[in-house]
């Protein structure tokens, strides 16, 4: 469109060869229209989900909802809250992150900075296979191995192990991509100063990639925060507050949503929406917070 006006301007000397016309103009418009249409179609589900969840969730959401558990709340009662579930989710995801993020980062560093070509290819293949593990299988594995075979029983920690299995490949691959984007010129500049390789990675490469790595980690966190299937087999669910993630069944927001939404009573369904809204809120707060932290770090350096 700007091209058209531009060519019209050029055409003052009577030469019209630059004018966009005929087939090219039609194809140009069609392609532009198709792109805008695709963008619109892709945005519809996103906006619809957010709109509906926030709308339904907010009407039931309150401070009371955040500070009370489901202890002694029957299906017909209008009160009750998600405190126990929020506590469980935060503990489970935190423990899973503590396991998966350092391990994932180390694997990514190995793949990008140390691994020989063949070893790296093998590890990368295994990580890719791990990405494909269905979440219920990860839950089943921890259920069979930890809950049953080792007689540890249900616990938040069992759930966090299943979540860590799901997080690990996401962290590895995204961190590896980000490390790969750090130009080798910075590594060589550091080597030329007589800085050891491990120091270079720690003080030059990782800080340079930190914003991207944080985004990858947050995506992994966001993904597992909403996982339900593995928690059913490992955390089990609980109406009461259990602050100890290492002993006994806990609740979690996805579990609470699942249980409340399967109920036929309107009060339960409302609680499910409010819990869903809380879940989205937690993920958004975490994501924004992490981005702000790394951005400030990357620009201002203490």
């Amino acid at each position, binding site marked *: 469109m700007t091209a058209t006006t531009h060519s019209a301007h050029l055409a003052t000397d009577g030469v019209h060869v630059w004018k966009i016309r005929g087939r090219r103009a039609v194809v140009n418009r069609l392609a532009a229209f198709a792109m805008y249409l695709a963008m619109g179609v892709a945005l519809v589900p996103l906006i619809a989900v957010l709109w509906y969840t926030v709308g339904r969730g907010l009407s039931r959401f309150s401070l009371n909802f955040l500070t009370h558990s489901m202890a002694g709340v029957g299906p017909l009662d209008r009160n009750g809250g998600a405190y126990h579930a929020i506590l469980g989710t935060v503990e489970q995801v935190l423990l899973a992150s503590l396991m998966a993020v350092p391990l994932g980062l180390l694997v990514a560093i190995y793949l990008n900075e140390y691994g020989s*070509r063949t070893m790296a290819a093998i590890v990368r293949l295994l990580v890719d296979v791990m990405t494909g593990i269905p979440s219920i299988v990860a839950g089943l594995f921890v259920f069979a191995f930890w809950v049953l075979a080792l007689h540890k029983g249900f616990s938040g920690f069992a759930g966090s192990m299943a979540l860590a299995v799901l997080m690990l490949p996401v962290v590895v691959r995204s961190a590896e991509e980000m490390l790969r984007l750090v130009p080798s010129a*910075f590594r060589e500049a550091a*080597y030329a100063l007589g*800085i050891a390789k491990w120091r270079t990675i720690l003080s030059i490469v990782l800080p340079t990639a*930190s914003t991207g790595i944080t985004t990858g980690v947050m995506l992994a966190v966001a993904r597992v925060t909403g996982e339900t299937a593995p928690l059913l087999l490992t955390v089990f669910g609980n109406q009461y507050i259990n602050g100890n993630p290492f002993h006994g069944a806990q609740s979690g927001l996805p579990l609470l949503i699942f249980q409340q939404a399967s109920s036929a009573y309107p009060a339960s369904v409302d609680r499910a929406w409010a819990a869903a809204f809380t879940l989205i809120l937690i993920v958004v707060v975490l994501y924004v917070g992490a981005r702000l932290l790394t951005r400030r770090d990357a620009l201002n350096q203490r």
Partner: protein
Amino acid sequence: MSKRIEVIGLSCYYGQYRAVADVTMTIEPKAVTALIGPSGCGKSTFLRSLNRLHEVVPGARIEGQVLLDDYDIYGSDVDAVMLRRSVGMVFQRPNPFPTMSIFDNVAAGLKLTRQKGKDLSDVVEQALVGAHLWDEVKDRLKKPAVALSGGQQQRLCIARAIAVEPEVLLMDEPCSALDPISTLAIEDLMAELKDRYTIVIVTHNMQQASRVSEMTGFFSLAAAGEPGKLVEFDATSKVFSTPTHKRTEDYITGRVG
């Protein structure tokens, strides 16, 4: 402080490919030695073998000897990391560490190698003064280094290199990404630095080589895929007025390359 570099029969390989063949030369201390030659003739590879940065590339290795004041830097008892503290390098593109401030960039070499007992702000000031950058940045040392112009960034990289007090300074086309004024600033700087360091500079700019250097080495390769060789190595005035070899003459007069 500056040291003599003696290169004996040096060949550099990338896997099976021989990039540089059989170079023998003596690089004098307290002087600027320029290396010229067409692209792909192995000048940079040769330069990177002098601080053992060549071997960072997977599959890269060398044959022959490099002696730094009679000490074999490729000896089995030499720690390449420690060696590089004595042989600094400035690269073609300015590459200040993007997450660090101006101050931290210059201090990086000392901070990240845990060299204690020195007042960092003193070292940083001296290095920046030495690189002719102090007056331009003294009021914004805490600002990100990437906010500087290209020429300033390159002088920052020189400051970063001399802050660790090396004995040799290798410069790989340090001005090729800079405008003429920044280039002049860096050439002036080289003239000063050579009182303290052994300087080796790779350059595509023959005027630059004739302006800044005492000795000039001409690298060339017989054909694409062949290894680069040192064709001629002599006093700069001699190389640019009465070169011994026909190929050198063809190159510096612009008949080839």
